């Protein structure tokens, strides 16, 4: 059984340097966006999904766990933040905190349940759990069912930054994305990340070496779910609503697609994938339901011919790790 991700290259100082250069280039490019006249709303949305996909990738690319229910963290954090901001009238930073805490609590519970099985069973369990949550949110009064929570006040972050201004909001979202990205990057390159990779490659051997693999996997799941929740909280400020579409399992499928297109188990892949998919949805919106078909075709094409994804293929060509 071949490994899910192509990560055979050792982490060398050169690789670290490559990654830092790409990261700096990405940060500068994204920082310049408001000056170019590109629609900032689109980039902000893509940034939220990019962080979400990176969090998802932490689990699949480094832990070998394909979660098919990551939308539940996005949606849960979104509902928690939206409720805190609108009904409790909390400030933005506290609203984000409530959302992240909600996603973290959810990931502790769902992680504890789902890591009991591996492989496709793990995927099916996460999928079923997210569908369970979908039905709960459909019926719970505070989510307002089909209507969702709308008209969320954006307010002043730390009492200083006016989030109602698109440019300010953009830089806040960008800072949030870069912070989350660096946290994931640091995790991957820590001893903890190395153990995760070992578990992905050969779990029985990791167990025989004395690692409590379940604890590592659970911790990775919680970390991933929490960062995904952070992305969901940021998204509330961008979209100014929280709705059921964020919790539905088709959203989980989109997260998987983004990561697959960009490259499973690559550091920058999920970011590229998220931008590609969001741009596609933006520009193909006129095709209506055909977008679903196109997404399906991309799924099939990626799995059959293009398994490394955009960044994975580039990295493989230059024999670098990205």
């Amino acid at each position, binding site marked *: 059984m071949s*490994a*899910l991700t192509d990560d055979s290259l050792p982490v060398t100082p050169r690789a670290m340097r490559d990654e830092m250069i790409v990261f700096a280039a990405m940060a500068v490019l994204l920082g310049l966006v408001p000056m170019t006249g590109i629609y900032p709303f689109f980039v902000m949305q893509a940034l939220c999904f990019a962080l979400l996909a990176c969090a998802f990738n932490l689990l699949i690319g480094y832990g070998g766990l394909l979660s098919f229910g990551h939308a539940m963290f996005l949606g849960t954090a979104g509902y928690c933040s939206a409720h805190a901001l609108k009904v409790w009238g909390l400030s933005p930073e506290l609203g984000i905190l409530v959302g992240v805490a909600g996603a973290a609590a959810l990931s502790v519970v769902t992680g504890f*349940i789902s890591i009991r099985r591996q492989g496709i069973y793990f995927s099916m*369990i996460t999928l*079923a759990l997210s*569908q*369970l949550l979908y039905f709960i949110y459909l019926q719970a009064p505070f989510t307002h069912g089909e209507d969702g929570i709308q008209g969320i006040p954006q307010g002043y972050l730390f009492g200083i930054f006016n989030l109602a201004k698109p440019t300010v909001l953009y830089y806040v979202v960008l800072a949030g994305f870069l912070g989350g990205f660096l946290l994931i990057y640091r995790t991957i390159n820590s001893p903890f990340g190395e153990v995760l990779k070992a578990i992905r490659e050969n779990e029985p051997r990791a167990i025989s070496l004395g690692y409590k693999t379940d604890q590592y996997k659970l911790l990775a799941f919680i970390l991933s779910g929490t960062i995904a929740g952070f992305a969901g909280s940021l998204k509330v400020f961008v979209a100014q609503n929280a709705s059921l579409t964020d919790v539905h399992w088709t959203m989980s*499928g989109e997260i998987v697609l983004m990561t697959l297109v960009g490259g499973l188990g690559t550091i920058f892949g999920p970011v590229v994938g998220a931008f590609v998919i969001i741009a596609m949805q933006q520009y193909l919106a006129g095709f209506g*339901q055909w977008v679903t078909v196109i997404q399906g075709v991309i799924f099939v094409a990626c799995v*059959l011919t293009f398994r490394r994804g955009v960044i994975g293929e580039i990295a493989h060509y230059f024999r670098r790790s990205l």
Partner: protein
Amino acid sequence: MQALYAQLLVGLINGSFYALLSLGLAVIFGMLNIINFAHGALYMMGAFCAYFLLNITGIGYWPALIIAPIVVGIFGMILERTMLQWLAGLDHLYGLLLTFGIALIVQGVFQNYFGSSGLPYAIPDELKGGMNLGFMFLPIYRGWVVVFSLVVCIATWYLIEKTRLGANLRAATENPTLVRAFGINVPRMITLTYGLGVGLAALAGVLSAPINQVRPLMGADLIIVVFAVVVIGGMGSIMGSIITGFALGVIEGLTKYFYPEASNTVVFVLMVLVLLVKPTGLTGRAA
């Protein structure tokens, strides 16, 4: 009490669909090592196939029960030959992702042509009406669905567990190379098995067409419940899938009677409970 019996019957019918679908998933998983995410879409195709047969060619329900599974089964075999077979030897997860993509394509195409609303399919004349059983009124078609799917499930179980063909199949699951050395065409067997599993899904689709309306997304949400059924039952045995499928349908029906708010979630809650106590599922072997 009337309502309780009615919900029990609804539960049994849903249970028949769960059983037929999880049975097909188990058969496919056994041979191809793939969780067939497209199963819901193929179930929907079965229902649509019956609908086309009736409205375009005038072929009614009874022939459709045979024709639709064959047509959709052939479609499945084409899928297996053109795409799924290239994933042999790769991680299981790629099979899940590929079939998910196929499901998106199939459902998207049907949504484009038929919208999201349902198309009606009339109950065949022979099965119209109902019977008064004394304690409840039994619509004949619903009784027929339960009995017929039970028969199909038992027949499939018999085919796989008790016949020579089934023995070859199970042997090929254990050790394809060795079985090949005995002169059995394993790739063809895999293709036919996929066709069989898909055919079972399509059959469930035809059965459900007169009860639920024929909709492009009719399989999309159902398949996730079936996945939960599979996790609870544990894919270990064919009989396990059948019993778990029916049992969960009944439990769902009972919940609808006693505590309707939880009827959508009870299967998932049960899944959580089972996982906490017995992670391999009720009849499952360790993965």
